[in-house]
């Protein structure tokens, strides 16, 4: 009887909200799209389409796909690619690295050092490993850490608005 009671209590407590999961991914995708509006890629970047590669996060990739259906970056069509590894990722304008792959950021940064690519991490604190932007939460609010030098060393230009709205990281 006691065991049943405990089980019932657990069932009562466990009210997992799928909505909560998707809201975070949805807003991260919206933020990411907005970042692209505030960063300028050099003329030698992929001219045909705007490629966003998502490493290790299916949920994020799905939200970005929804965006890609309704939005463009400039005149370019947005193409979402998924990958489970960091090697051989060419022609990406943006690479988004999931939390589970965060240990690979320094390797990813080295792999992409010659490319005009905006590196974004889902996990905070990765600007020191080469991320241009790291998502974080502050007092229950979604925010982002931003490192201007990590953006500029890939040949990208960032406007002051994006810098001022983020948490600057040296």
């Amino acid at each position, binding site marked *: 009887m006691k065991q049943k009671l405990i089980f019932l209590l657990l069932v009562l407590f466990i009210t997992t909200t799928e909505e909560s999961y998707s809201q975070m991914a949805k807003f991260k995708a919206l933020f990411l799209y907005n970042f692209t509006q505030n960063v300028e890629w050099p003329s030698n970047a992929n001219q045909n389409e705007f490629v966003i590669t998502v490493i290790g996060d299916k949920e994020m990739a799905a939200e970005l796909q929804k965006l890609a259906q309704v939005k463009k970056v400039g005149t370019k069509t947005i193409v979402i690619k998924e990958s489970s590894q960091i090697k051989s990722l060419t022609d990406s304008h943006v690479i988004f690295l999931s939390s*589970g792959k965060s240990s690979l950021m320094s390797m990813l940064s080295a792999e992409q050092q010659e490319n005009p690519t905006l590196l974004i991490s889902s996990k905070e604190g990765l600007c020191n490993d080469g991320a241009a932007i790291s998502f974080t939460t*502050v007092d229950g609010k979604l925010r982002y850490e931003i490192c201007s030098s990590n953006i500029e060393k890939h040949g990208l230009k960032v406007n002051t608005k994006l810098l001022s709205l983020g948490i600057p990281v040296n």
Partner: protein
Amino acid sequence: MNLRHLLIILLAATFFSHSFAQEPTQSKTREEVLNMTMEEMSSLPLEELMELMDIVGVSSIEELYDLLLNKNVVSASKKEESVFDSPLSTTVLSHDQIIASGATCIEEALRLVPGVIVREKTNGNYDVHIRGNDNLPSKNLLLYSENMNTLVMINGRPVFNYSHGGILWETLPVSFEDIDRIEVVRGPSSALYGPNAVSGAINIITQTIDYNTPLLSGNFNGGSQNTYIGDLALRKQVSDKISLGVTGNFETRDRKTDEIFIYSRDGAQLSVDGENVDDGYFTLDEINRMRSGEQEIWPPYMVGDEVYDIYKSFPNPERSKYRYGVNGYLNIDPTSQTSINLMGGYQNSEVMTSTMGDVPTPYSTKIASTGYLDLRAKIHDFSLQANYNGGTIDYMSGNEGFELDNEQYSFLAEYNKTFSNLSVRPGVSYQSISYDDSKHISEIGKGYLNQKQTINIFAGSLRLDYMPTERLRLVAALRAEKYNNMDDVYASWQFVSSYKLNDKNLIRAVYSRANQSAFLVNTYSNYTWNIVNMEFPRIMQFDGHTDNKLKTMDMVELGFRSRPDKSILIDVEAFYNRSKDFVALAPDMTSLAVFNPLEVIAETQAPDINAIVNLSFQNMDLISNQLGASVSVDWVLSEKLMATGHFTYQKTTVDNYVPYSRNEILGYQATIAQSDPDLMAKIGQALVDYGTGVATGEIDPTQQTYAVINSVSETPEGEEDDFEHKATPSYWGSLSFSYRPWKKFEFFPQAYFYGDQSFTNQYGIIDIEKSININAKASYKATDNLTFFVNCRNLLNTEKTQFAYMDKIGGLYLAGLSFKW
């Protein structure tokens, strides 16, 4: 402070909180935002999108994932990384987690950490050991129950007692308002942090001051046993380049009694006013009149103009803890690649806890007054840290020779270079640690150092972190140390490999070695104790050795970390470690002597024969072997419920175990000396030699008042192997829940439990029963800025002893508030 004052403070805080609280002014409701289409939202500028996100808010469950399951850690690799990826056994306690748990001090918060056993000695004073291995060697001083195996740091600055070895928790100047997180690394870590990180390292990381930091924040607890604990912080980022702050904290707690325990040492009959009594708890007045056999148990004596008596030893026997600390912070970021952090502070403390010496009671009063200055700088890939700790610590108030001034200087320079998949971190460090008792003793010879003595440590280190593939990580950390008093160079290392089976599962293996540092008492002791409260022996001479080997631990560890679902994190670690080269106080020799040689030569008195004992801090043959495993689970069950639990099982056996106490060995030696068939002839010869020496001027009878008859250095045989060491319980752990039925209310119950233990020191064996300690904190968030709470520690008021000879720990019932503006 009485209840009425407390209520006034609570009401006033509520009023001001409501007055200053700001309500959100956004025009859209959460539902309206959630109903917006992707296309609508994607057309908004970033600042408006951020406002909408703020209305929706990061869901509670996402916050819980971040708080509990997605933490970052710095201490395991000296770089920020996910706890999941940490190559070592690592736990991070966040500020919010600590506050939610209701822990009343740092030591108590460590009950949330897997593998850490925490036992309360007196109200607010704790024994903390990572994985146990405590009280080794046993059958010796209570000093060896202190944790000499764990290096505690504040932002990487060692806060360690190099005098005797151990951690003086009450002298930590910081408190919860200062702390961002506590990082605990289990397993030998000297290669990363230097000596004394033998069983692990605890790094207390202070908060970063930025534009999000509240200008004023604090918390206050008050309740039973006159317990009042408070914290206040005033911090501000004044410009993009400069931030500063000042914090203060205080804590005062009472015991439930003002009596202290007196043991009957070696069976001597205790008596008060002529009436025989058993060992037990007595008032100071009773102890002042107490005898052990024929001797006064606590005779007063003069040190200069001051009387050293039981009342000086225990100035506040009803109080268990009193401390306060202040800290100042200044952070400057002159360029984007340079940061300078300066931190300084002061603390004052007085605690009643277990003794570090050999007195008729297991209690002592420790009084400390210390300050520090810590400079950390980062210039591109270089990091530098230089700091000073200093002050005065009286380890046993009212006992001459235990009050010491100390100065510790540390310098560390490291360079970190990352090449794609390889990170290289060379470093050099220097530590100079000085203790000086000469200003606190009446004459040279009354202290155990009798002068300023110094230990210098120069070290070089190298850490390589290599990822040959995206899944495989190999780490090698090496360190070599040179001491000023030993020829040997001490090497410590960590070799780690981890392999990510996939994003959700990681396996790892560690082989590591770490060593203690030299301690001042082990190295430089030179103390003569003329005993006045025991019949035997008459003199004890304590000496240190500059060539003692340093205790080392080797460990092999296998770990498995799994994230089967985004809501759960499971961490399993199995470890085997072997420790050797323990250093402890042990008998060298017992000599019989005539203590009235001139009177015997003059034939005015019969010979007064007693013993002189020579002891030294020496290496033991003892080897400790520990096999164990810890499992921890962090589980976010829902937005309302979060569970964390950990369980450790271990078995420790010792080889070359000496089943005799110091006094049993001395008794053995004395028996041999007294059984000497030539004893009478040797007494005569000793007197002749003494008389001749005095006559020729070779002996000054005012300095050497005795004539040595014979000496014995043999020790009893019978060392045992594979002896089960029971001072560490075979199991311990914790289970806690955070339950938030409503957004403003949080209930945090915790059960901390451990198994039976058997603690042995030189005066007896104390069995500690298995126990469960139930704690609970209920918090109500009145506004975003103000939270009220009630907090019960040991809710069931079990009144059990958690640590040998120390107080029975009852319930502690507190109420309070925390605020931020």
